[in-house]
């Protein structure tokens, strides 16, 4: 399962779930699921979120947990 730092970087930028969802083209529910580590995004979505959160690398935001 994937763990994410979306909440951390989103709060740092001061943007809401709704705003992030709009920027990356998904629903707010998808952002909620991602923040709760319930949903594994596609590489494209992970890349869009990384860019929206002003990070360089996908692994800065998404941490793959092989366990």
């Amino acid at each position, binding site marked *: 399962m994937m763990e994410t730092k979306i909440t951390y970087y989103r709060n740092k930028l001061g943007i809401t779930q709704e705003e992030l969802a709009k920027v990356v*083209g*998904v*629903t707010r*529910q*998808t952002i909620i*699921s991602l923040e709760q580590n319930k*949903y594994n*995004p*596609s590489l494209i*979505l992970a890349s869009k979120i990384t860019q929206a959160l002003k990070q360089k690398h996908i692994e800065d935001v998404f941490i793959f947990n092989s366990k």
Partner: protein
Amino acid sequence: MIGKYNWFKRRKYTGWGFTPATWQGWLYIVVLVIPIILLTGDGHMTQTRIILLIIWSIIFVVDFIDIMIHLPKDERDRIHEAISERNALWVIVIVLAVGVAYQAAQGAIKGIVQVDPVIIVAILAGLFAKIVSNIYLDKKN
């Protein structure tokens, strides 16, 4: 097309199709229904009215399909929809197969062939749709 897809959202928990998400969506439904009521309300179906009803129905079936195709969905929605549609389809296929077996058994007892051909055609049509989808998807990615 008449209806805009962002007026609607996918019907998630109450069946198939879409449900209005904005006032424009509700207005669309009203606009869809009023002519049908006007054409059929008094019970007198003339040939002109039947033709108008058929034309009106075709317009909205085409529009309905267009809206269904373009409904706003993200990747998570698509995955959820695919899984729930697959589950629904499996239940339908099982019920139809049990129905065919029941009808065949009833027919065998009576010594006649008694299976509803519509059920067989429905299962075969589904099989065909699955084959075509898999060929298309294999070629696409």
